[in-house]
């Protein structure tokens, strides 16, 4: 009796506690391919509802693109379904190395190593390249996977206030006696949608002899004039020592991630990064699809240009309607509601109106910062956004939040 009554009841009470606090996460079953419009079964057992999707990381609309699907299908035929191996035993095909070379060229780095996900890349990279003689100095709003990766390495851990360059400089001064300093940041911050000041970060890194690591998962493929990422937007291509990113968002959205950067650091990951060493290779079908995604992105910037237009248009619609929107230049447009229950209620009502969004609240965002994170896609047409804003305005009027700032919303609904 390894799993007895005592254990079962304890876990049941934990889950009940989450449910009682309104913090229980529920999955919605999508009964169509990922796209701007999808069929969602929610709650479980309900008839599928056709809705506009405003919460996918499908930034470039490539998740179900016919050319990507066809390339994946051909990859399946040519290289099989699985490899049944980690990379260094018998899990590396020619197409894995092809994709790594293509990503290196696309990102403007020296070398690239694929991981099963960017979560795995972040979990492995720091332990592979840093030791107790070193220090990581991380933005306080970095993604949870970077936090986990930093905690797994032996380097001293420090942080700086979100995008506060003065604070970062103080920390670089404080740690001048360490062997290596590594600044760690997201490129685009996933919850707020703002961009790291990579030009200023690189300047500080050069001044204080530090390396820079950027998780560009919410940027690769569309930020910057040709979609290379935040480093292109900030004019520092070739100056970022480690880029981690994902194939699971704009780049086709299936799965897979990578560490890309200085060739010695990438080689250290090949030798030491535990998620690379001890988990399976990226499936051939995904590799083949990702290579096609890079073909599409290198042919034209039409998709990232359309996404940029959509994001600006949607942001303007929300602001003009009187919603409290976080400032930013990315296709992540958070509508601030502050109160967790309000965020859930608004999301539920929007779903009833045919708009699929999700309320985010603690612990995904800080307490008192509940919001609905809307995300744009190149798959959205103007008509989608016009329909969506009509629904947002209808629900916003119901809850009397239009034209109200943070203090007014908190006064009305509390935190």
């Amino acid at each position, binding site marked *: 009796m390894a799993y007895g009554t005592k254990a079962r009841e304890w876990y049941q009470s934990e889950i009940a506690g989450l449910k009682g606090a309104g913090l229980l996460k529920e999955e919605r079953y999508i009964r169509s391919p990922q796209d701007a419009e999808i069929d969602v079964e929610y709650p479980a057992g309900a008839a599928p509802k056709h809705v506009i999707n405003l919460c996918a990381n499908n930034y470039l609309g490539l998740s179900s693109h016919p050319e990507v699907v066809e390339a994946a299908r051909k990859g399946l035929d040519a290289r099989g379904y699985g490899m049944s191996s980690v990379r260094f035993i018998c899990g590396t095909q020619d197409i894995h190395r092809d994709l790594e070379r293509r990503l290196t060229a696309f990102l403007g780095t020296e070398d690239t190593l694929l991981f099963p996900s960017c979560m795995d890349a972040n979990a492995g990279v720091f332990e592979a390249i840093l030791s107790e003689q070193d220090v990581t100095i*991380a933005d306080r709003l970095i993604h949870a996977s970077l*936090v986990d990766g930093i905690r797994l390495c032996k380097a001293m851990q*420090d*942080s700086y206030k979100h995008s506060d360059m003065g604070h970062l400089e103080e*920390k670089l001064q*404080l*740690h001048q006696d360490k062997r290596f300093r590594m600044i760690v940041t997201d490129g685009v911050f996933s919850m707020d949608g703002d961009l790291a000041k990579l030009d200023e970060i690189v300047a500080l890194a050069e001044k204080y002899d530090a390396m820079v690591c950027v998780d560009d998962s919410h940027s690769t493929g569309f930020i910057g004039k040709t979609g290379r990422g935040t480093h292109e937007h900030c004019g520092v291509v070739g100056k970022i020592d480690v880029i981690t990113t994902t194939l699971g968002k704009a780049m086709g959205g299936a799965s897979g991630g990578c560490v890309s950067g200085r060739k010695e650091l990438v080689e250290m990951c090949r030798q030491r990064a535990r998620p690379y060493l001890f988990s399976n290779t990226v499936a051939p079908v995904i590799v083949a699809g990702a290579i096609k995604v890079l073909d599409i992105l290198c042919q034209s910037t039409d998709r990232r240009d359309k996404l940029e237009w959509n994001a600006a248009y949607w942001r303007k619609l929300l602001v003009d309607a009187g919603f409290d929107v976080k400032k930013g230049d990315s296709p992540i447009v958070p509508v601030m509601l502050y109160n967790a229950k309000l965020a859930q209620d608004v999301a539920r009502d929007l779903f009833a109106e045919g708009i699929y969004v999700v309320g985010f609240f603690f612990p995904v965002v800080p307490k008192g910062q509940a919001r609905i994170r809307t995300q744009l896609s190149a798959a959205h047409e103007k008509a989608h956004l016009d329909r969506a804003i009509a629904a947002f305005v209808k629900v916003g009027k119901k809850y009397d939040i239009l034209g109200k700032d943070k203090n007014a919303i908190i006064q009305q609904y509390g935190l």
Partner: protein
Amino acid sequence: MDDLTKVILDYVKREYIEEGDDREVGLDTPLISGGIVDSFSMVSLKRFVEKKYAIQIPDADATPAAFDSVKKIAELVRRFQQVHV
């Protein structure tokens, strides 16, 4: 309040209280158990006092409990200042 305590209090406020955060920090405010300082950023607090007061606090003494309030940090610093006098 003596100078040492004031320096630590000012540092804690500047380092850990974000703009718009209306939490008050006093000498006895629980910093780590109160969620103001997380384990991720406790290191800079330790390094700050070590460098400022030219002391070395062994890891065995740099416990979350010893860093849990401005008053306790000041006591810790004084203890190691005396050791090195």
